[in-house]
């Protein structure tokens, strides 16, 4: 399935080659770098990049105070739909970041982020599975 192919290639996909390739830091908010297929998350005052291929799902929720919550779940080995593969075997013993959730006061920004991540992820997964198919 989709997860399998994205996991297999996640090891080869690199968000940035050097520290200076990161986009200029604007506000400390979730940012999508479409060119580099990367999601940047504000963690403790720094923007932390995650390649979109490491992401499994993204969802958002809004409470009555118009506060928005966004949850990003990453690919980890050994869960249904992402069985152990070449990648997890190669990095045996690693600890995985599995999930992050953020709170935001800006529902429009959050729904935009969710849409962008979903679209970007779909594109990358489609491209990579096509590549895998061509290789076989």
């Amino acid at each position, binding site marked *: 399935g989709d997860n399998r192919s994205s996991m297999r290639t996640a090891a080869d996909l*690199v968000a940035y080659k050097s*520290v200076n390739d990161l986009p200029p830091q604007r506000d400390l908010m979730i940012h999508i770098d479409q060119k580099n297929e990367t999601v940047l998350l504000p963690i*403790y*005052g720094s923007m932390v990049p995650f390649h979109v291929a490491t992401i499994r799902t993204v969802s958002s929720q809004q409470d009555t105070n118009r506060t928005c919550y966004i949850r990003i779940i990453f690919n980890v080995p*050994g869960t249904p739909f992402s069985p152990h593969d070449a990648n*997890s075997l190669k990095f045996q013993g690693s*600890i*995985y970041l599995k999930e992050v959730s953020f709170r935001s006061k800006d529902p429009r920004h*959050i729904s935009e982020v969710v849409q962008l991540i979903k679209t970007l992820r779909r594109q990358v997964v489609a491209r990579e599975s096509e590549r895998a198919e061509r290789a076989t």
Partner: protein
Amino acid sequence: MADGQLYNNISLGGRGGTNPGQLKTDQRGIQWKKQGGGKAIEVDKADIVGVTWMKVPRSNQLGIRVKDGLYYKFIGFRDQDISSLTKFFQSNCGIAPEEKQLSVSGRNWGEVDLNGNMLTFLVGSKQAFEVSLADVAQTQLQGKNDVMLEFHVDDTTGANEKDSLMEISFHIPNTNTQFVGDESRP
């Protein structure tokens, strides 16, 4: 080295984002003041136990670990500031700053390192991010392999980030040997 040195546009990093200010060094230690007043930090040179440098996008980050386990992050140093500050720490505190590297590969697997109350997530021996366990409201074990950290809701006015971290969880496969059967978990 008796003379004080002033560094402008130095931000204090942390949970609620970054705050711009000014950093000063003198024979007593280092002082940081928030631009426009308000928050100030004074660190006596005798209390400094560790100093790190890290290259961050378009800037350099100074990390200062103090005796009681607190850890300060200052961002905004130019390349040429590194040598003067490194000299300062060497001659005044007898500490040689260590160099850390930032991971920008975008991977979500690596190692977890616990030092003082800081939890660092390392990807390929480079630092991806760090969080302070002092801000963790509770930890939960989910299933056999997942650990969730829930952060305090930070409503202080000092917070200037638009999106705030609420929860983070790590998956520790059975193949990991670092935290095997360790109930105190990360």
